[in-house]
């Protein structure tokens, strides 16, 4: 089988370019120009690189010190949303664990004795190393109990076990109450809702 070569369409070099020396000098001029700019210019530390001004041309971010402003919809690490009394809103329905494509959520359910809702997570653990940050758990949650709005990346840890976050570590942020919360916590809701209680 014959090897077919693709036609190379290149602009022919001019006489000066073929002598190469002129282009060499021009190239060194460009790099030396950047060198002078960055050597003498005072660096603008604005994390938004495109908005930097001044003589300096540096386009790098010093990551831990200079952090880019994250966009509003950015998915960071998870948190469990607390309710008014400080317990998680989570009702241990397993929807997030079921939908999770990376299977990084582990839940053990327990039952409340004296509250309007039946279940709560005894254990709720997320392995942030397995998480692929798809956000399906947030979409699947019927109780708005898990969010990814912390704005933090997965943290650097010294061993794998430390990247698994338990319920206490995940529970943070302001308490949230929705008008659609059918059962109010602590006391039975009016109407037939009381029938759910044991």
């Amino acid at each position: 089988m014959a090897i077919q070569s693709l036609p190379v369409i290149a602009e022919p070099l001019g006489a000066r370019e073929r002598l190469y020396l002129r282009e060499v000098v021009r190239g060194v001029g460009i790099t030396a120009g950047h060198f002078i700019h960055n050597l003498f210019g005072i660096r603008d530390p604005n994390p938004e690189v495109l908005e930097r001004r001044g003589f300096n041309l540096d386009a790098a971010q010093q990551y831990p010190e200079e952090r880019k402003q994250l966009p509003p919809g950015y998915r960071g690490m998870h948190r469990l949303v607390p309710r008014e009394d400080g317990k998680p809103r989570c009702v241990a329905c397993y929807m997030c664990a079921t939908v999770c494509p990376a299977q990084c959520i582990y839940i053990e359910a327990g039952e409340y004795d004296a509250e309007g809702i039946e279940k709560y997570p005894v254990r709720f653990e997320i392995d942030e190393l397995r998480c692929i940050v798809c956000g399906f758990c947030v979409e699947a949650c019927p109780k708005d109990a898990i969010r990814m709005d912390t704005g933090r990346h997965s943290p650097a840890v010294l061993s794998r076990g430390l990247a698994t976050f338990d319920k206490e570590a995940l529970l943070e942020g302001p308490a949230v109450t929705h008008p659609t919360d059918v059962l109010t916590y602590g006391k039975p809701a009016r109407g037939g809702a009381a029938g759910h209680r044991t």
Partner: protein
Amino acid sequence: MSHATAHAPELEVSGRGRGITSAEIVRGTFWTVVFLVFLFAVGLVYALLVAGLQKLLGHDWGHAIGSILSVVLLFVMVLGALLTMADRKWGSLVQDRLGPNRARLPIPGLKNSSFGGIPHLAADVVKMLTKEETVPAAGARFVFNLAPALAFGPVIVLFGVVPMSPDFPLWGESVRLQVADVDQGLLVVFGAASIAVLGTTLAGWASNSKYALLGGMRASAQMISYEVTLGLTLVGLMIVFGTLKLDEMTAGQATHVWGWLPAWGVFFQPLAIIAYFAAANAELKRAPFDLPEGESEIVGYFIEYSGLKFGLFMISEYVEVVIFAGLFTAMFFGGYHLPWGEASLAQLLGPTAMGLVQLWVFIVKTVFFCWLSLIVRWTFPRFRYDQVMNLGWKMLLPLSLANVLVTGAAMLWGGREAAAAVGLAELALLLAYVIGAPAISRSGEESSLAPPSHEAPAAHAAH
């Protein structure tokens, strides 16, 4: 610059890189002056070291030990070691990055300063010293261990013949920063430089690795090819100055042609400078001639080396940069001489201060050419192997041969003045070519160099 389009350069789009502020000018001037003063102080330390040892051990021994210490160990080695960091740091400046700055010294109050990346030097040394030494089981063990020394040793010797300063009185002693004042000068340089080929070739062979062998083969072919050019480019200089001794060559460059033109090699041999610079970069195996290393494909002749043996290869590369910059200065750019006004300056300063100033001039020039060499490395992509060979044998070698012929003819015809006139004419032509009108319109050439029509190639017709 990858986002720059053909129509609007990036600088104009973002409005960056325009208008240097006065604060930046003040700051830049201040640090430039500090740097130059630092270089002067360094030169003073070198000279004082030699003078002190001469007092202590007598003139001969003191000069021998002192100049080896100050010139080879303190100047070449320290500058070479600093260049390993400068290469990364200056490369980052060229590419609009920040470069290595994470190694920091635990000095109270200064802990957040990266000192221009200098602590990385210490980190690198510690890393190399503590790495495991590996020797390929099927390699030639003795040669494998010998090769780094063969690559590094001759390089160190090279600088011995370069004069860094004239004789000048200091501390009651007559001081001169040059290790050996041998009659064969340049021949010693060529001899020692060609031994360095052995180191790289043997390293490639003794490693018993395909990649190392490829690198070693490339290195031997390339370095031997360019040694021819390297030697021939300097023949013109030998004709002009009538000597092989580098200090006589430097002394010859203190004079003036027609009373105003400094008799620097650059004005006699502009073509030779270009050929020499290209050939020297090829000889150093540095980008754009770094095929023996070929980092991205074969890693090169030192692929099997670890720890400080690899470190020797690496540092010898940078030491070679210093040495070729020093040779470049001594041969083409007047050595330790200023272009004009040396006589009146000497009267003003007296011999001691003048000697120190000349030493400083040499150091500044050498540092500048080290910078140029590193900038070249960060500017050009690597040549293909056939391009390297074509450039060496078909362009630089004929150029240097023609240069020898023209220089010799001019010297025979009209002596140094004729050679200077020819050199100035060459320089004028080069300048006109480089800064002249933009390239010739391409449309007129397309008929002769049109790409082959890909409508119906013969291969298609056959099927």
